[in-house]
């Protein structure tokens, strides 16, 4: 069972456009929601993260929107650039119970930004 559902699987955006990736979860034990960016042949790198007591977090061109009641969160990349082309993963960290410390990932979104 996929604990964190991510969509779309792939995304093509023109340079300067907005890239939007969505994730949803069910487990209320999730307490922290990071996003990772991965380039081919490299390990995922932390991009931005949010806690459920905050509805939005912005860092440069990257923004996380968080809807606690709907159990959904999304990544927005403003003014998308060709260098943003990568695979993006959303994740959720469990903070209690038998899954304490376990980090769950979505399946990833392959973003391609056309110049």
């Amino acid at each position, binding site marked *: 069972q996929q604990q964190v559902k991510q969509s779309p699987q792939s995304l093509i955006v023109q340079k300067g456009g907005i890239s939007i990736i969505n994730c949803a979860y069910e487990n209320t034990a999730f307490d922290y929601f990071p996003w990772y960016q991965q380039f081919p*042949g490299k390990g995922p790198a932390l991009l931005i993260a949010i806690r459920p007591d905050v509805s939005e977090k912005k860092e440069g061109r990257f923004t996380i929107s968080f809807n606690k009641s709907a159990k959904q969160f999304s990544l927005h990349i403003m003014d998308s650039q060709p260098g943003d082309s990568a695979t993006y993963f959303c994740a959720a*960290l469990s903070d209690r119970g038998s899954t304490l*410390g376990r*980090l769950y990932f979505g399946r*990833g979104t392959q973003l391609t930004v056309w110049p």
Partner: protein
Amino acid sequence: SQTIHQWPATLVQPVGSPLSLECTVEGTSNPNLYWYRQAAGRGLQLLFYSIGIDQISSEVPQNLSASRPQDRQFILSSKKLLLSDSGFYLCAYSTYKRGTEAFFGQGTRLTVV
């Protein structure tokens, strides 16, 4: 500062040979440690995670095992590799406090031939 080291970067092993991948973390104590596998163009499959020495959880039944001989050392092993064990193996850590993200090593590309 905190850093994570994973080695080797690439490895080619024959079917039936043993495997040992090592991961160490510096700059923090009692981290959560993770081993993930990523098939080409696919997502991250959690293999093992550990919230402390002698506390290792296995997520996927397979011929791999994990050990944590020291607080900041995590080892992925196999006695006999299968062709299906080929993939990109990633070690990660998170610090043991509420709401802390995980940081990944650079990965090991394993090819079983």
